[in-house]
Structure formats: structure tokens, C-alpha cells
């Protein structure tokens, strides 16, 4: 079974600064997908960014980018120019690419605080 580990329960960043959230995973599969979800206080799960394992190029979505290290099984999220609205729980998630239903395996989350 796949596991996802987020070793930082909480992180803090000043507004306009950059922060990196860590995620590692364990899998024996070669084909899979990785995701970062944001969960604000409203509880709504919002997809931030996604990465295909077979793509070496790191995904980027505006201020959000990932550092995908397949050999190290690491998938960190970098938030640039942090904004107050970025404050939320962030979850790293794994999905197998084996053609079965798109079940997600989540990490335990990192709570991000953004300070003035």
C-alpha cells in the first residue's frame, strides 16, 4: 500500500515571502500522480497543483510550484509571494496510475500560517 508523509505539522511564513512544504511518499509503482490540496477554514478541499510521475518537468500554477524528485520520492510545494489567503491546511495526496478508480491517499497535512 502507498503511504504519504508530511513531516511538518505547522509552518509559518511572512506575507510576500516564500515557503516550502514537504511531502514524501512510498510506493512500488512507476506510474502515479501527485497532488497538493488546500483546505481553508471553510473545509472545502481545493486542488492547488498536480504532477504526473512520468513527467520530469516540475508543475507550476502561478505562485505555486513543486519540486518533484522521483528517485527520492519527494514532492514539495513552494508558495511564492505568500498572501494572507494562502493560510490553510495543505495536504499532499497520491493516486495510482494503474487504471483503477482514482482513489486518493492523503498525508496528515501541514497547517500554514501567514503573518503580516
Amino acid at each position: 500500500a502507498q503511504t504519504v508523509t508530511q513531516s511538518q505539522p505547522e509552518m509559518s511564513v511572512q506575507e510576500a515571502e516564500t515557503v516550502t512544504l514537504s511531502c514524501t511518499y512510498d510506493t512500488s509503482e512507476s506510474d502515479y500522480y501527485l497532488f497538493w490540496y488546500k483546505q481553508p477554514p471553510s473545509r472545502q478541499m481545493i486542488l492547488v497543483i498536480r504532477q504526473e510521475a512520468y513527467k520530469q518537468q516540475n508543475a507550476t500554477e502561478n505562485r505555486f510550484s513543486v519540486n518533484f524528485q522521483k528517485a527520492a520520492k519527494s514532492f514539495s510545494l513552494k508558495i511564492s509571494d505568500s498572501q494572507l489567503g494562502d493560510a490553510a491546511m495543505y495536504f499532499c495526496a497520491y493516486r495510482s496510475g494503474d487504471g483503477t478508480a482514482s482513489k486518493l491517499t492523503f498525508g496528515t497535512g501541514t497547517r500554514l500560517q501567514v503573518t503580516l
Partner: protein
Amino acid sequence: NAGVTQTPKFRILKIGQSMTLQCTQDMNHNYMYWYRQDPGMGLKLIYYSVGAGITDKGEVPNGYNVSRSTTEDFPLRLELAAPSQTSVYFCASSYGQGLTYEQYFGPGTRLTVT
């Protein structure tokens, strides 16, 4: 489009009671999922469905039942509620399995069993 809707938003149950959490999506998605999120934890898959009439167990199915009679609806049934089922429950749906088919989540139902 409303997306994925869940009812109720909050519920308190007594031990041994039963209830059904409702989930409806209006995006004509084939795949639907139920997750639970315990305090300070990530989401764990309870059950999922790949289409009407087809359901399968996820990681933590004990104490729950599901049915999928229509594409739109995927109710989750709790029989004989236990304190261990106190959690936030999320329903999600997706059109397919590829990377571009992201899962859309409902707003969640907070359930307390006392």
C-alpha cells in the same frame, strides 16, 4: 452548476442510532467517493463507486454502507453509530481516472457521535 452537495452540514447522533449522509453531484461524473477526516489527519477513503450500481470498499469501510442507484447520488449509511465515527465526511466526484479528471469535493458533513 452546484457541483457536489452534501446534507446535512452538521449532525449529532447518539450511540447506536443510524443515519444517512446524502451526496449529490450535477456534473454527470462517473466516479464518486466518500472520505472521512479525523481531527488533525488527512482524508481516508471509505467507499467509492465507478458508476451506477457499482460500489467498492476503500481503506476504512467498517460500520458504513453505500449504494449508487443513480449517477447523481451516492448516499452513505451509518448503522449503529459509534463514537469512533465522529469525523468530518467528504463526498467527491470525478469524471474519469486520468490526471486531468480532478476530484471535486463537497463542503463536508461534521458528525458527532455521543
